[in-house]
């Protein structure tokens, strides 16, 4: 169980999150929508230091070696091709095999990763994040930039990951792609958690607009 307890994140004078508390069971897919979702993922990954509160798993801080983080807009170091990026991961972990992921999310392997189209960069980001076999996956807007057929592939993959004893925390700006994928969904707003829904409640929300608009507080 990943426990987020009274988390407060500030950036300068702005309070991005305040009093966020969540209990995220292991081996499940958790969705997060609403304002501050990317901040929450970055805090879980340790990129942002909380001013107050804690993020822990069974009483211990989360370890980087257990986590992989997919940014909403993945960016890469200039000078490296997509093949280099994959090769670097394989250099440090010979067991990983990205072939299946490359088939599902095609990328031009010999193009410079930093200057590829946003869709190709997203594909490469997904490949690099998922191929490492980490136990906790933090996916920031994984459906953004994806073509409709790839969104379906991603949903299937997420279902598979949830059944594979991995804990997935993903964000989205829309609820529709999360239906049938997430075990539960948190709605953030005003710096805190506004509502939590179980997977069977998602279909009833019937909302595809901006998160928070017209979604009843739970």
């Amino acid at each position, binding site marked *: 169980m990943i426990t987020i307890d009274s988390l407060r994140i500030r950036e300068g004078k702005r309070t991005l999150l305040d009093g966020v508390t969540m209990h995220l069971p292991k081996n499940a897919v958790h969705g997060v929508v609403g304002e501050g979702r990317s901040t929450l993922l970055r805090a879980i990954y*340790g*990129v942002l230091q909380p001013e107050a509160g804690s993020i822990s798993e069974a009483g211990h*801080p989360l*370890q*980087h*070696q257990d986590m992989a*983080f997919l940014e909403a*807009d993945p*960016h*890469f*170091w*200039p*000078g*490296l*091709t997509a093949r*280099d990026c994959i*090769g*670097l*991961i*394989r*250099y*440090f972990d010979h067991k990983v095999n990205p072939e299946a992921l490359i088939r599902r999310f095609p990328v031009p392997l*010999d*193009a*410079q990763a*930093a*200057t*590829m*189209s*946003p869709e190709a960069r997203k594909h490469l980001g997904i490949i*690099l994040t998922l191929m490492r076999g980490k136990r906790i996956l933090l996916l920031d807007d994984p459906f953004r930039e994806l073509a409709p057929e790839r969104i379906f592939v991603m949903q299937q993959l997420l279902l598979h990951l949830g059944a594979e004893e991995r804990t997935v925390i993903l964000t989205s700006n829309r609820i529709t792609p999360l239906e049938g994928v997430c075990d539960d969904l948190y709605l953030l707003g005003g710096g805190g958690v506004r509502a939590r829904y179980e997977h069977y409640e998602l279909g009833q929300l019937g909302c595809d607009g901006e998160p928070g608009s017209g979604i009843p507080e739970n």
Partner: protein
Amino acid sequence: MPAPNPKRIYAGRWIRPELLGGSPEWTAGLRRHAPTVWIIAGGLILCILLPIAGFPGLYVAAVAAGAFYLDNEPRELLQLPEMGPCRLLVRKVLTAWRNYFLLTLPFALLAILAHPRTAWIAAAWAPLSALALLYAVVAKYAHYLPDTSRRQPLAARLGSAGFIIPVLLPLSLCLTVSYALRAERNLNRFLHDYD
């Protein structure tokens, strides 16, 4: 979001992270500056034809290779080896030495074969080149911030110049020690839970 202008890089299979000890710096550097690397290789061959210029030319190439360590990689690349700060620094330095000496070995052998009487200069070339690369690595990580293009402070630039201007060499040696300690502390912010 529009795609940034595609900038052409050499995408050939001769440059692979697997062949370069898993070093993103050398992979990206050789790809981005492939024409410059060829020009330097041509220049080194010309230097080898001259009796004294071979090993000094190779030493200047080591100082130039320090430019591969000017840009800061994204945090994900830094964390990829999953090592603590000390182990990562040691690994980076050893990889830099490995790549440099492997790439310059043919030139060094040619220089020795062409002018055997100047082979003693290799005894100065090897440690000085290793020191220049060590400085480049620790200076980078002493000021590391993820994903930024480093603008070196004046002291660091003087330290780099010390490997070309002998008067400044003592400063470079002092800075190497200072930056090594600072690099360990700086990287600890990003890699503390890998120990």
